[in-house]
């Protein structure tokens, strides 16, 4: 496409007062653009009509809009992405609202932003979306509370669903339980489990196909075009997206010999209690008698560094429920619950009170230090320190229930058996739960188009598992819809680009295949990356990783950012006007810088911000380019990293940090100080720190003196 660039400048919202528009237009003119137009209100009917008219007449096919932040008024300035390239130059939040009006440094800043905006457009091409992944079937793996809900919700929304269940019947663990926790106000009574209606509805639902007694042999392909082979042979099934709801398994109680398991016959687990209760009576395994006193040990192997360090969230509530099983069987049965903390969130506090009122005795103690032995009067003796009494106590019981925790079924079985270069399983966090940005995007995994729901993701009740099923089904639907239109899913939802590899120059170094957090690349036999575009989230981490710089996007490339950096005018050292490049994450840091403007805070006028899709896409050549051009310092604003990382992709800023540790080489070669580069973790509510960070950085650069490469 031949580019006809129109530069539209808005002087509203205080921009006109801060910046000299004639001079600004002059900068645009130097770039040889097709049209320059200024208006006092570009977002008004009149202003925006000018742009639309120019586009429809063919006078302009690329729009550089110098106005407010690209994060606002996006509907007004939306043009057909298949026909028009648009770049929003943020003259409002990033210049007029955070710099003194009419100052020459403010002007220089605005001019640089316009130059960079024009270069960005010049380095972009129209997208050629990937339109081959068209299947919209949702595969649900696991037919427990979460899976059944996901299947039903996706089906009700009109999508074909394939539900794969390992067991001969649907229902998951809940189908094995005797009764469930209170579900209705006033949350005092345990309730019957109603599954048959749901199962019936699913089994007779026209667009749900159920595969019982089945597991996944293999899944190949990518979103919109997954091919699924089941273990019992037959043709493969094509699906568009996947909900993994394969649930949990109990922590292995045989590891709890310290609590008497398998040493004393009447020490059982909470799962066994459910089975006994369902079978009709709660009796001691050793002699079949109804126990007179029952003990429960909470956190049996949970919140314990030697076993499961985390809390399984439901076992406190489950023990309350099971205590009531015993009281319902015989009111006279004494029940003693040994606990670390009773965790009874939400309405379960009401139930807890009710169980206390039924006379259940609670003993606060460190349950991992309890000593369990044969008893003298009753069968089992429990000795521990009652922290509320502040003294050791010894109590005897006929039966002891270990409230064991939950582990994800994916812990030692990949279940999905993905044909991905990075392996058959979903990448997991510390304790085997699939990795996700669990605070903001809980259902996401590191495999695009595959979403987790229920206890496979995190321990939770069946009520929450069902809600999870709904959430994951909606994600799966979003995925097939966007994918079929060639668009990216979250967080760059709607982006039509995807990585282009100039494969002739690939050296098979495998960095991209290894570093892509989403496993987009498989490999051929020679080790050349084999892209699966719909797996891609468009983070461009691969672009940053590729030493040959052969990975680019139609709207993002190494050359593009490098050229933008080069377009900045760098004053010579005698002017004493340093220049700082800010490479910032578009998801958290960019909005934070907008907030600086919204709050009318000021920062040094030397900095020029360039948004990156993810700090992980950073390529070291940009740093080298900037420094050899005479830029004095570079700040990188990424999201918070660590265990509770906030990356909208996966730990991109942490990756950038690792890459930066390698920058020393470049600096040494240029004989420059490492202090000229600084990485900061910025979350969106950290905006108020930004001016201070920039001022400190400027002060440090002043100490270091100007970059000696200025003017070269």
């Amino acid at each position: 496409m031949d580019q006809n660039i129109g530069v539209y400048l808005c002087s509203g919202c205080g921009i006109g007062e801060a910046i000299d528009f004639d001079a600004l237009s002059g900068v645009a003119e130097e770039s040889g653009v097709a049209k320059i137009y200024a208006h006092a209100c570009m977002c008004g009917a009149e202003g925006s009509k000018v742009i639309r008219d120019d586009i429809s007449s063919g006078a302009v096919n690329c729009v550089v809009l110098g106005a407010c932040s690209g994060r606002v008024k996006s509907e007004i300035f939306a043009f057909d992405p298949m026909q028009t390239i648009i770049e929003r130059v943020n003259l409002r939040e990033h210049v007029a609202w955070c710099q003194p009006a009419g100052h020459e440094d403010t002007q220089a800043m605005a001019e640089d932003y316009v130059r960079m905006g024009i270069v960005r457009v010049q380095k972009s091409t129209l997208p050629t979306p990937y339109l081959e992944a068209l299947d919209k079937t949702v595969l649900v793996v696991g037919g427990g509370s979460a899976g059944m809900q996901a299947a039903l919700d996706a089906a009700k929304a009109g999508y074909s669903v394939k539900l794969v269940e390992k067991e001969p019947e649907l229902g998951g663990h809940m189908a094995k339980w005797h009764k469930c926790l209170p579900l209705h106000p006033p949350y005092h009574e345990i309730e019957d489990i109603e599954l048959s209606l749901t199962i019936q509805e699913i089994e007779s639902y026209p667009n749900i196909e159920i595969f019982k007694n089945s597991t996944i042999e293999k899944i190949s392909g990518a979103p919109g075009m997954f091919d699924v082979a089941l273990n019992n042979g037959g043709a493969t099934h094509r699906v568009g997206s996947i909900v993994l709801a394969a649930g949990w398994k109990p922590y292995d109680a045989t590891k709890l010999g310290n609590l008497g398991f398998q040493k004393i016959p009447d020490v059982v687990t909470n799962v066994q209690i459910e089975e006994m209760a369902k079978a009709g009576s709660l009796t001691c395994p050793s002699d079949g008698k109804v126990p007179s006193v029952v003990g429960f040990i909470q956190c049996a192997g949970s919140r314990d560094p030697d076993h499961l360090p985390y809390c399984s969230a439901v076992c406190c509530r489950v023990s309350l429920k099971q205590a009531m099983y015993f009281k319902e069987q015989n009111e006279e049965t004494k029940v003693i619950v040994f606990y670390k903390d009773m965790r009874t969130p939400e309405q379960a506090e009401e139930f807890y009170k009710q169980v206390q009122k039924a006379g259940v005795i609670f003993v606060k103690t460190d349950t991992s230090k309890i000593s369990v032995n044969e008893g003298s009067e009753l069968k089992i003796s429990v000795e521990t320190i009652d922290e509320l009494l502040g003294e050791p106590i010894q109590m005897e019981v006929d039966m002891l229930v270990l409230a064991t925790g939950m582990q994800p079924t994916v812990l030692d079985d990949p279940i999905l058996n993905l044909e991905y270069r990075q392996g058959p399983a979903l990448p997991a966090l510390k304790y085997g739960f699939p990795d996700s940005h669990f605070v903001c995007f809980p259902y996401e995994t590191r495999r695009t188009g595959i979403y987790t729901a229920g206890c496979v993701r995190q321990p939770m009740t069946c009520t929450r598992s069902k809600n999870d099923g709904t959430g994951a089904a909606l994600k799966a639907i979003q995925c097939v819809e966007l994918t079929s239109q060639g668009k990216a899913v979250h967080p760059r939802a709607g982006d039509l680009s995807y990585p282009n590899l100039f494969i002739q120059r690939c050296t098979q170094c495998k960095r991209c295949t290894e570093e892509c957090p989403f496993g987009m690349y498989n490999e051929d036999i020679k080790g050349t990356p084999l892209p699966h575009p719909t797996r891609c989230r468009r983070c461009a981490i691969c672009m940053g990783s590729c030493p040959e710089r052969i990975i680019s996007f139609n709207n993002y490339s190494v050359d593009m950012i490098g050229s933008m950096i080069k377009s900045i005018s760098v004053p010579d050292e005698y002017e004493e006007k340093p220049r700082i490049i800010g490479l910032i994450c578009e998801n958290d840091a960019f909005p934070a810088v907008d907030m600086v403007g919204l709050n009318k805070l000021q920062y040094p006028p030397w900095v020029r911000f360039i948004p990156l899709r993810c700090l992980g896409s950073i390529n070291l050549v940009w740093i080298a380019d900037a420094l050899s051009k005479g830029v004095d310092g570079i700040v990188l604003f990424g999201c918070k990293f660590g265990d509770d990382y906030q990356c909208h992709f996966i730990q991109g800023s942490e990756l950038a940090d690792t890459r930066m540790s390698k920058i020393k080489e470049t600096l040494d070669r240029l004989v420059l100080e490492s202090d000229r580069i600084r990485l900061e973790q910025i979350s969106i509510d950290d905006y108020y720190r930004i001016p201070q960070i920039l001022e400190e950085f400027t002060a440090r650069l002043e100490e270091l003196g100007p970059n000696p490469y200025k003017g070269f």
Partner: protein
Amino acid sequence: METRIPFLEVSDAIVMSGAETLYWCMQCGLCTGSCPWRLVPGEASEQFNVRLVQRMGQLGIEGFESENCLFACTTCRTCVDRCPRGVDIIGNIQGMRSMLAEVGTIPGSLKPIVGSLHSQGNPWSGPREKRTEWTEGLSIPTFSEDTEYFLFVCCTSCYDIRSRNIAKSVVKALRTAGISFGIIGAEESCCGESIRKVGDEALFQKLAESNISLYNGKGVKKIIVTSPHCLYTFKNEYPDLGGKWEVYHYTEVLADAIKSGKIKPSGDAAGRVALHDPCYLGRHNDIYDQPRELIESLPGAELCELSRNRKNSLCCGGGGGRVWMETKAGERFAELRISEALDAGANILATACPYCITMLEDSCNVMGKSDQLKVMDLSELLAEKL
């Protein structure tokens, strides 16, 4: 540390004795933190931790039985109002005490009280026939079908010389207001409120039954009481046993009389008057305004609120049977109350309960403050201005 062995049969017995909410307690400790015993030094303060006492009760573990532990609770109700679990803490304390009383292990100091109640119908070892000695020269009418109110005078104000002045003052005020009232006399027995709190349930039942049949036999419909403790049990405990009457504390009746203009206090300025809200008038019966209205009706009276007032009022130390037990000087809540009244700049500390008068006046004297601060019942303060 020696390992303790819980006896769940003992906890069952405690629950059976009335500690019905014993297991509701989640051991948060808010009660212990709220308890006035935290404000004073001494043995009871060190030994009595109401949270722990209930824990021992839950597990049936002994060690809480002493006068300075289980029997320290004054039943002031501060903790009950704050407990996040709605535990009837006083009921639990009472249940634990009852369990001991049943086997005869109540503190020795309470034994003469119990004896006197059994034989004379009052805790003060006064002969039954002298119950009306205080009325001498007052020609107080005897209650009959034609009388509107039966005036029930607290045993303390019948026998204690100092306290008799309260009874006399109430009578004077009621007369001025033209209210129709009468007493029954020597057949009346102690209301039994405090002995029930001490745990002697059987004795309470005996006293209550005798009062109920007496009052019902005389045709009582409405009662005025001089003590908030009698008010509490008549109003809240007697109905279950067949005693269903309209019961009023004298402050309620007199505040009404002032509002309707039946009495108009006059005379010298009363000065700066601080009010001690009795636990049983305030927290137990929710009466806070009428005593203040009485003070405000007095000529030249300035009500000065104590720093702990109304719902947060600090106990005098006399409830729950403590009025019959010895608390050492320097460890008494009443001493804190006297200091608070002095801090508030009061020259009179008024209250409306015979136990409070006893406790506060005693501390005021022990502290040597009686020349700066006068402890008076509201009825006395009012009677002076009539």
